[in-house]
């Protein structure tokens, strides 16, 4: 459950600037793709549209058969409960411990406290930070904060995992580990879209690459092409 189709999507801001222009793409369930391009190419806007943080000016975004750009406001939370998002600047809560930060997507679903703790610890274990569950984000390095953000994104076993420069603060070895984690999620049916500048990752991971330039798709390359 994670197919995505963009039909002729354009995003134009109030100042007239177009972040995306007539983008049409499809992502099969369980697929993985890198979204690349220079700064301002439209990668972040692309992800924000899928997160419903912004709405397209024209076109349709269909996720699992539902045009999410017309999703009623009251149904947006339920849609987001099935997403995972990783941001370059983490968006961790400074007054919550690592465990509490990771548990947040489960807390909003009213899961039992015991189950929340179990699943949050499992996610922390996946990113190698179980020993630091009681620390606050300010006590972690940038790389560790990024891994907490990743644990939070995957803790609810999302159908769709969106990541904006998830390896920006990680060393090459850890970057590959994180990517391995994303690949695992893809294998259990999640669709994974990663926006990145990391050419080394793009070249070595062997997944689909979509390149944006000034809001247009200029390359859409399947693995092995």
């Amino acid at each position: 459950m994670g197919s995505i189709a963009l039909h002729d999507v354009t995003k134009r801001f109030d100042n007239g600037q177009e972040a995306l222009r007539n983008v049409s793409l499809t992502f099969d369930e369980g697929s993985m793709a890198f979204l690349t391009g220079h700064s301002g190419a439209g990668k972040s806007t692309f992800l924000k549209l899928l997160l419903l943080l912004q709405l397209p000016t024209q076109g349709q975004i269909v996720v699992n058969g539902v045009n999410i750009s017309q999703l009623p406001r009251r149904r947006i939370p339920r849609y987001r409960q099935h997403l995972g998002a990783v941001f370059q600047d983490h968006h961790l809560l400074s007054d919550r411990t690592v465990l509490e930060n990771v548990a947040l997507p489960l807390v909003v679903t009213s899961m039992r406290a015991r189950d929340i703790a179990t699943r949050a610890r499992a996610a922390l274990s996946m990113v190698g930070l179980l020993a630091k569950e009681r620390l606050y984000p300010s006590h972690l390095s940038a790389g560790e904060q990024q891994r907490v953000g990743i644990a939070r994104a995957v803790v609810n076993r999302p159908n769709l995992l969106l990541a904006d420069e998830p390896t920006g603060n990680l060393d090459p070895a850890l970057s590959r580990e994180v990517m391995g984690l994303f690949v695992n999620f893809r294998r259990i049916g999640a669709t994974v879209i990663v926006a990145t500048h990391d050419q080394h990752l793009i070249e070595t991971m062997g997944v689909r690459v979509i390149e944006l330039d000034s809001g247009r798709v200029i390359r859409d390359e399947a693995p092995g092409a």
Partner: protein
Amino acid sequence: MMGGDRDPWPPVQRPRFAWIRDHWRVSRDCFTLACRRLWSSLLVWLLIGISLALPAALYLLQRNLAAAAGQWDGRPSFTVYLQTGIEIGVAEGIADRLDAQPEVERAWVITPQQALAEFSEGLTITDALEVLGENPLPASVRATVADGVSEGELQRFIAEQSAAEGVDEVVLEKAWLERMAAISDFVGRVGWILAAVFGLGAALVTASSVRLVIESRLEELSVQKLVGGTDAFVRRPFLYFGLFYGVGGGMVAAMLVAGSLVALEAPLVTLFDSYKERLTIEGMGGPLVGALLGVGGLLGLFGALIATNRRLKQVELA
């Protein structure tokens, strides 16, 4: 919903009693946070308390005035002023005749000497006879009306007595209490107006305080929404803040009114004593304290709703 019969994002299965557990968790967290920010919480409680105390005090005053007027209305008294020169024995006969009437609870004679003594009290003159030369006051009969006598029956009875032989005038002594009833009505209306104005003020104080709390937690809210927190989930802690502020303000109001009552009781009793009337002051009582807490809580919730509805719609991760 478009495309297919199946909901692609079914609601997450919530365990039984999850709703109660969530509320318990949030209320506990909010209470802890309100106590942690004790100084600012105290200020808010005081502001709301003052806003609620004034209308509550006026309400209580109105109830006491109405009760006093009501007590008197049930047993008004009247004085039968006799013609000058009437013998005391005749006065006693009139008193006995009135005492036998079903409309009268009790009747007794006020001798000219007693009347002069009462008159002297009013003038604060030690010996009124020195001023007046001789006692000009006639004997009179004072009577209290029996319970259950209606206003119409009383008026008819007074008219009959006025026409009786030897009677100069019959005066129904309730004019000042009629004025008190009017004052009570006026105080009641002022109380309602102040309750509306100050109630709105209390709600706005809460809204402003809750808004400050929201502003200090904007990033948390945007992250909660990003990970799928519903509006109700995101709004819940702030509604509890409003509730705590409102109920706390109600408690402060109850304390202020109770303190004021203690301070005002002695002068009020003295005032009523001057009218030969015994005053029993109605205190706060459980229902009024409960009403203050309830109204405070509702106003707090209302204020919090205003603040959250206005602000939370704009909160999204940029």
